[in-house]
């Protein structure tokens, strides 16, 4: 028989349970298997009622974020063999309400993301017939890193500020706001400033820095937020020197 590893999975059924429980499964320990493969093995062969989100299996869709041995991870990019001889503890992403087993409720994030206007804001849209908004490679480079975000929410699970104060806008939403702020085609900086410089925006961040550490796409949300604190402070000073038309 092939080598096995114990997978300790959080189970929760809103109809049945008051609090989540832990169920252990023995799964084959294969060199090329990631934690998501082990979960799919359980679902296919052992218990079809195990619920979790996943889609692309290649670190692009951002659906399979879970806590693996207490760390926020994309389960499609986390190898079982790194945790041998086990057990491997798989829990739903921290700081979000659990809906069922490993599935969390993320509409709070979606609402916050929409609030920061993560799209190109133009004062006046140019007609399609006039062509694209052009951009140099240098202009692209200015925001490219922040545009790599896949909304996997590992950063929210790593952020104690979000855990303690759910009103905080959070790392990914703020980094994505900065992604559009730094885009040469965007004209929405002043609209975003009013939203981002509120208490629950950038100033909620105490720079723990763990969001950047756990980000699988190297977005560096902590950096984006600190850089924006600098910008917001400059704008605040400017509004004193030039009360009118500072923006």
């Amino acid at each position, binding site marked *: 028989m092939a080598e096995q590893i114990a997978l300790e999975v959080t189970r929760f059924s*809103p109809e049945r349970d008051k609090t989540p429980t832990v169920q252990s499964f023995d799964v084959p320990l294969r060199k090329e298997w990631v934690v998501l493969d082990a979960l799919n093995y359980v679902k296919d062969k052992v218990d079809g009622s195990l619920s979790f989100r996943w889609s692309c299996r290649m670190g692009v869709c951002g659906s399979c974020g879970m806590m693996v041995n207490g760390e926020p991870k994309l389960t499609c990019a986390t190898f079982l063999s790194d945790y041998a001889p086990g057990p491997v503890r798989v829990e739903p992403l921290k700081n979000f309400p659990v*809906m069922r087993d490993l599935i*969390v409720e993320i509409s709070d994030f979606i609402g916050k993301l929409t609030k920061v206007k993560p799209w190109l804001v133009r004062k006046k849209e140019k007609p399609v017939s006039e062509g694209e908004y052009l951009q140099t490679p240098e202009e692209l480079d200015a925001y490219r890193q922040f545009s790599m975000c896949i909304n996997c929410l590992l950063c929210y699970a790593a952020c104690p500020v979000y855990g*303690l104060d759910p009103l905080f806008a959070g790392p990914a939403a703020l980094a994505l706001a900065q992604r559009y702020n730094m885009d040469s085609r965007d004209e929405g900086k002043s609209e975003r400033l009013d939203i981002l410089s509120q208490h629950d925006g950038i100033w909620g961040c*105490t720079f723990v*820095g763990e969001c950047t550490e756990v980000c699988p796409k190297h977005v560096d949300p902590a950096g984006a937020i600190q850089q924006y604190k600098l910008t917001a402070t400059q704008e605040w000073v400017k509004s004193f020197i030039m009360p009118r038309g500072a923006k």
Partner: protein
Amino acid sequence: MATYTEYPPKGYRLRMSTYWWLGRWPYLKFILREISSVFVAWFVIETLLQINALIGGPGAYTDFQSFLANPLVIALNIVSLFFVIFHAVTWFNLAPKAMAVRMGGKRVPNALISGPNYAAWVVVSAAIAWLLLRG
């Protein structure tokens, strides 16, 4: 008949423990960095007390010196020195994150942002050491 609800039931929410910062070194480091501000404040108060003693004349300064010689104060100052150095080092290391300087279309490497901070720290410390220790 089942009806569509726009917002699903709230689900199970785990409350964060008061001791969330104890289990993981990065969180503990963050809390220590925040606490370091208390010790920075203590050094400021100590310096103000020293200036006050200086104004008070030789008698007051001797009293201040004997206060500094108290083993408890020495212990507090050693701990404070550790925290102030920790504060300075973490601050300098975080500086490049907040300052994304771009030159010639490329981002300036982190070492070029934190390096001058460290250099200024060494120069100022050396100047103060020279002032105090030249005899």
